[in-house]
């Protein structure tokens, strides 16, 4: 049994940090390829869950500068999960912070470390900070642990917790999430905007209150729409970057050149413009949203799995049912395939 507690709503900076911590799991964690769901404001600010919902990567974010005692305080929600009935499911406990007082650290240069990088006299303060916090929280008290057991648990817990110091810009976080050709990177301000879009989606997940609900198994989280699929985030960013690249109105996607060569000069421009216009229409159509995503996913996956194929071969591999759902013709579909293929050229 797992009782949901300590969910929260927060300000813009903390929201930013929760999204940063999500990107930490998505981009940089050793197990990032195994993380399938991001559960928001549930077990913790953000928790990665694997495809079969057996394993949970737990992350707590703090957009603050922390000292030893505060560091201990911040660990409370991670610790809560450590002592919960689901503790065997949690494979990783991460505290993601803006910065840690360098006075308490042994090596000040590393950004990802365990408790062993904290000076031993400071570790005491960390423990005390966590102990004080644990003794004041009802959701820990409910377990009825004796002082001695609690201290032992804290000692064990600190051995496995990881500290990560935030060091990337928002635009780097977005770029690192996906594999595209650097030539299609848009401006930093646009990358920041994409970050914001993801942050807003994440924040909107917090609107549903789940405080006090009781779960029997980890996968019960699926009953609540408080998760985002890792694949969806990657798809969103890729699609945004490719569509932004499309807006270079005069650019001819290199892989599409063979289809233009056949035409005479004056016609070429009109032909390209027609293709582009169809796609413009598609991405303006707010009433055809899910079809677009199905189509985009199909094209993207097909291109990704067949990087050496030419446009015709890729077209033949597409799912006909899916491209029938979007307002494109064979030329504009091929144009779009070329756009995606070139965008992923690397």
């Amino acid at each position, binding site marked *: 049994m797992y009782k949901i507690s300590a969910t929260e709503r927060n300000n813009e900076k903390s929201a930013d940090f929760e999204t940063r911590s999500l990107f930490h799991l998505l981009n940089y964690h050793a197990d990032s390829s195994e993380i399938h769901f991001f559960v928001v404001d549930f077990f913790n600010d953000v928790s990665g869950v694997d495809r079969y919902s057996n394993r949970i990567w737990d992350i707590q974010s703090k957009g603050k500068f922390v000292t030893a005692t505060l560091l201990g305080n911040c660990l409370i929600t991670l610790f809560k999960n450590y002592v919960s009935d689901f503790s065997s499911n949690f494979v990783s406990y991460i505290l993601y912070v803006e910065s840690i007082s360098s006075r308490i650290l042994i090596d000040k240069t590393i950004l990802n470390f365990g408790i062993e990088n904290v000076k031993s006299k400071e570790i005491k303060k960390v423990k005390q900070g966590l102990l004080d916090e644990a003794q004041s929280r009802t959701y820990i008290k409910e377990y009825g642990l004796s002082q001695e057991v609690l201290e032992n648990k804290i000692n064990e817990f600190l051995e496995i917790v990881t500290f990560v110091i935030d060091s990337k810009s928002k635009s780097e976080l977005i770029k690192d999430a996906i594999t595209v050709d650097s030539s299609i990177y848009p401006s930093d301000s646009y990358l920041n905007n994409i970050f914001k*879009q993801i942050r807003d989606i994440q924040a909107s997940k917090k609107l549903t209150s789940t405080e006090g609900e009781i779960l029997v198994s980890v996968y019960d989280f699926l009953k609540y729409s408080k998760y985002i699929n890792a694949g969806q985030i990657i798809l969103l960013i890729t699609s945004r970057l490719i569509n932004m690249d499309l807006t270079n109105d005069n650019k001819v996607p*290199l892989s599409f050149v063979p289809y233009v060569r056949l035409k005479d000069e004056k016609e070429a421009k009109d032909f390209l413009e027609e293709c582009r216009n169809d796609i413009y229409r598609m991405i303006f159509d707010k009433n055809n949203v899910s079809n677009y995503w199905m189509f985009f996913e199909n094209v993207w996956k097909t291109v990704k799995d067949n990087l050496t194929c030419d446009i015709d071969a890729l077209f033949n591999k597409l799912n006909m049912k899916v491209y029938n759902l979007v307002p494109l013709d064979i030329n504009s579909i091929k144009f779009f395939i070329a756009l995606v293929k070139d965008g992923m050229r690397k």
Partner: protein
Amino acid sequence: MKILNVWFGNRDEAFHESRFSDGINLIYSQGLNNRGKTVMIQSLLFALGSKPKFPYGFDTEKNNYYIVEIEENNKRFIICRKRDTFIVRDSLGNINLLQSESEFKRYYNESIQKLPQINKDGRLSTVYLSLYNQMFFLGQDGKDTSTLYNLSYYNKSDFINMFYSIMGYSNIITSDEITIIKHEIDVINEKIETLRYRNKVLNNKNLAASLVSYSANKIEIDSKLKKLERVKEILSSYKKERNRLLSRKTKNEILLDELNGLNRTVSEGSLYCMECGSKHIGFQSSKEDITFDVSDSDIQMQILNNVRNRIETVGEEIIKIDHEIDEQRAILTELLKDKHVTMENLILSKKDILEAKPNDIEIQELNTQLTNLKSKLENSKVTEENQQKNRDIAMKDLIKLMNKIFHEINYDGNPKDVELFTSRGEVVSGSESAAFYLARFYAFQKVTNHNNPIIIDDFREKELSSTKEKMAINMYSELSNQIIWSCTLKDEEIHKYDNFEHVNQVDYTGFPDSHLLNKKDVIDLANVLNSLSIKL
């Protein structure tokens, strides 16, 4: 901006020039002319968007590719031009297709370097490269110091306005422009007059009366008609192009409306809770339920801008074609002034020569234009005096420096000061005009601080003495701009540049007479075209 490479030619023969250096490049041939210096320089400028002026008989079929590789702001671009189509490869390897000079100038402005804007045809528009390049380029036969080189669309005051714009004082209407507007009003009035006359003639039922005069002068009229026919052909090809552009414009205008329409979510009522009236209603789907928007406002804005841009570009193209059409019409009018070729005769011999139908709509259109111009004239009378002062000061500085340099180089000549353009009819000798341009280009660079290469074909105008030449080279070697000058050396001048520091000598003496293109360079051409995804 630096020129790195120039290629031109076709699948049979080509030429590749790669000998440019960053500093002063002197392209010369020893004793002999017709070694291809002009062809190379014209090719280079043609690729950069200038109006071409190739030696007679060169590339008459217009089948050559003209390619230049430039470096601007540490980024390399390869620009390829064939007729009016440009293909540009940017530093990231992206290929951009630009179908007209208008599209090219927009791309250039956005991606290569900022272009100045001037008031032209009643609106503020980015200058075409054909004008922009004039500030640093002069062709071989362009030593007339009273006009611009090889341009018809632009005039002197456009060049002066471009200078003001570069200095940051654009966007006001000067007295020159008022004169232009007045002139345009006159032209339109005249056109209306002509059209009214034509309508009158065409409505005249007694055409038969003219038959007599037609038969009497048949031979003369027919030869005239042949000329007319040619003008008509040109006119009709322009008109065809104009129609194509118009339809492209309309298509994009429709697209714009359509996109704005699509962007509205269908909103037919909304859900609310029957019990409490709240609109905050959750819907729990069994599937993963996030759907992101297809695009965001940044992308949509960009797309709408693109479509608006296309409409504007095409609009500009249409204005340019209208200008060409006007020119051809002027030729037509001239031909029609012949007393034997009366309107009636023409109609008799060739009814469709002027698509001769009474045309009231055109008169209406002209009247609208007239009203617009008149109101513009009214507005323009309210000018900002400060801006005008700034312009005057900038121009004074430019002229002052130009004269200083001019007299330094032309030390033994007339001590009279010169203007940015000399007045028409003023006789300027060869060496004086060479000194004039050397002074003007130098002063223009110093005052505007532009970084473009300074390119002069036949910079000595065959008469500039070695002393003056040396003075000019020393002066220009202080500029950080790339210099590309050409000249023909007399036999006794052999090795004359060997003692010059900083001078990169590019020798054209060994090339065959009037045939620079060769088989060997076709491979180079094919390679560079390949990098632009063009198969030779």
